[in-house]
């Protein structure tokens, strides 16, 4: 164990930092879920990142990355959040589908899909859940029927109803879970890509509790896609989705840096209010919660460094994906509840555009978003079942 960065790692950090200082927009962008304009502004930022080769640093160079290891990825993320750079509009692509493609895709599929993903040219949504299949994902009904196109090439005809698709309102592509007609449960499923603007696809934005169209429901009616769009083998969809879910819950989706940056801002908020607010300053419970938020963020970071080191040494991500997901989602809610408690009588007030432009966190909106954490990427109840059954060996 050596908890010191190498000179190369420090040099990498310096390089990331100086590029971000020169390139991060001075004014925060409108949220990518709020409007089409906000979404496109984030797409533009992804192109800027790509121009510096920072789109997805861990990917091989031939697929638009830099070929760096997971410790450098953590360093990149730390600098990214330290710089207050825009949220990653293509996170479903780069953090979830990307690593899955890397593991299960053919060379041709990687060449086709990864570089435009790294560049933000094609932005992805996930299309797994259905109205009747949430936590019980194996209950999906959407079908993929084998067919031939006019030239005699293999293709699929997709039909069904997907829901809770994050970025689904504005994204270009979706990766969906479908089943062979007549198949049941985990059998007969395939992971298939489709364009969200192609004939037969209808998407209806769903407003989140903050009013933004953050996700969508998607109707598919005889949507024809080439067999090339299937990832992995026919019938392997469930297996691949579980690997993706491992990335989603485990390492990639939620960087520790995100929470460390928020905890640092919380400490700053606390220190300012301690002096200026009679109520908050006299409340020792608040300070204990600020300390707790900091410790939680630190613990999550240390845990991820541990996992990254293990993966570099050749291990595979295991059930820690589920413990991680519970930990980051719960610490996020605690952190933001603490911020609102410190804000006290001002907690209900929407922040002014001027204050957001000055770099103040949007504690209220971030709090609302944190409430989704225990639900998406597999509800925390399901994660606790997974831990009990796969880590502890309790019966199903």
């Amino acid at each position, binding site marked *: *164990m*050596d*908890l*010191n*960065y*190498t000179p190369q*790692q420090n040099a990498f*950090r310096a390089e990331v930092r100086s590029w971000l200082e020169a390139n991060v927009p001075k004014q925060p962008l409108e949220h990518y879920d709020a409007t089409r304009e906000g979404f496109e502004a984030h797409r533009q930022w992804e192109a800027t990142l790509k121009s510096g080769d920072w789109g997805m640093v861990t990917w091989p160079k031939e697929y638009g990355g830099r070929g760096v290891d997971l*410790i450098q990825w953590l360093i990149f*993320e*730390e*600098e990214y*959040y*330290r710089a207050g750079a825009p949220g990653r509009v293509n996170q479903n692509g780069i953090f979830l589908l990307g690593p899955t493609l890397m593991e299960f895709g053919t060379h041709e599929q990687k060449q086709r899909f990864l570089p435009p993903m790294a560049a933000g040219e094609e932005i992805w949504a996930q299309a797994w859940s259905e109205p009747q299949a949430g936590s019980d994902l194996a209950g999906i009904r959407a079908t993929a029927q084998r067919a031939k196109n006019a030239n005699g090439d293999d293709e699929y005809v997709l039909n069904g109803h997907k829901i809770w698709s994050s970025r689904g309102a504005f994204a270009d592509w979706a990766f969906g879970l479908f089943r062979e007609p007549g198949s049941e449960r985990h059998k007969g499923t395939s992971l298939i890509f489709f364009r969200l603007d192609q004939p037969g696809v209808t998407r209806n934005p769903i407003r989140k509790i903050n009013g933004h169209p953050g996700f969508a429901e998607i109707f598919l009616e005889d949507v024809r896609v080439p067999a090339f769009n299937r990832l992995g083998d026919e019938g392997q969809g469930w297996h691949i989705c579980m690997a993706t879910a491992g990335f989603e819950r485990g390492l990639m989706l939620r960087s*520790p*840096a995100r929470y*460390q*940056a928020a*905890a*640092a801002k919380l*400490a700053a908020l606390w*220190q300012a209010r301690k002096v200026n607010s009679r109520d908050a300053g006299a409340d020792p419970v608040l*300070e*204990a919660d*600020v*300390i707790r938020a*900091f*410790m*939680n963020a*630190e*613990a*999550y*970071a*240390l*845990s991820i*460094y*541990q996992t*990254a*080191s*293990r993966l570099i*040494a050749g291990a595979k991500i295991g059930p*820690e994906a589920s*413990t991680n997901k*519970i*930990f980051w989602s719960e610490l996020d809610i605690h952190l933001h509840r603490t911020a609102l408690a410190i804000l006290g009588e001002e907690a209900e007030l929407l922040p002014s555009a001027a204050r957001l432009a000055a770099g103040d966190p949007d504690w209220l909106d971030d709090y609302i978003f944190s409430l989704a954490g225990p639900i998406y990427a597999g509800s925390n*109840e399901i*994660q*606790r*079942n997974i*831990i*009990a*059954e796969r*880590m*502890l*060996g*309790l*019966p*199903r």
Partner: protein
Amino acid sequence: MDFTLSDEQLMFADTTRTLLGDTCTPEHWRKMMEQDVAFDAARWATLAENGFTVLMLPENAGGLGLAELDMALIAVEAGYVALPEPLTESAGVAMPMLAALAPDHSLLADPKAIVAIAPAINPVVAYADQAAAILIERGGRTFLAQREDVTLVAAPTIDPLRRVFRLEWESTRAEDLGPADWGLAQDRAALFAAAQGLGLAQRSVDLAVAYAKERTQFGKPIGSYQAVKHHLSSAQVAIEFARPVVLAAAAGIGAQDTYSRARVSHAKLVALEAADQAARAAIQVHGGMGYSWEVDVHLFLKRTLALTGAWGTPAHHRGRVAARLLSRPTGPDQTFAREAANA
């Protein structure tokens, strides 16, 4: 940057698990409680024979010259068996302090010798009845008193396998060894308490899991019910996010700065909270049995209670985390910060 344990460390931890698993079983606990003793001389001799008591002594003093991280891995295993003997406090804290103060002291030559330690921060001295001598902090100086030169007043404790004492002594009947690094000693002791907390926590979960697989109600093992599962999953999550903190605290303890102290304190807080959560969950999962003397879970609850208050209360340790948080740079690039680097 490499947050992995070496093969040697993993092997050493494995060996320790086997040795303690064989020599400190529920039958051993039961027998000791029946006999009203909290020290097993045979087990201590085995630990000494296998080098555990000289682990952290310098090699020129006949020790193995290993570091806090190695000892912390041993302490996890000690916690897992609720080890009654003072392995971490004597071999991990007191003996290394004595070696630093008096490298030629005759006690260092005896691997079976036990030295108790009495920092100003603790109102009672643990294991003093088994000690050949006691290191005592007073007014910034360090005194070594022989066991026969002090009066020990037993302070009854709820943990049947741990003995603590109030100490009556005279500095005139003790050896003045001068100033010592009590900060380091306290950090080490807090770290090893945290590491034991990890072991205590895991044992509580494991005991409850074993019971939940066996015990049936409504025709099914109770471990198949989500309400039971979720108690134990939540405890396991707490363990998983205390463990890397303990390991990082152990690896960084040598810096002895605001950052390293805060990390030790963080480790002690969360590891013993995990142990507390796990012990209470285990009692709940065991139902009426969990509230009985016959089931072993109470031993883990009680040791957790003792270690939570010893070597700095939660309030003390929260204060040290606050000192780091509110007086030093924070943020995503500061995870492994050191005073020297920020000076």
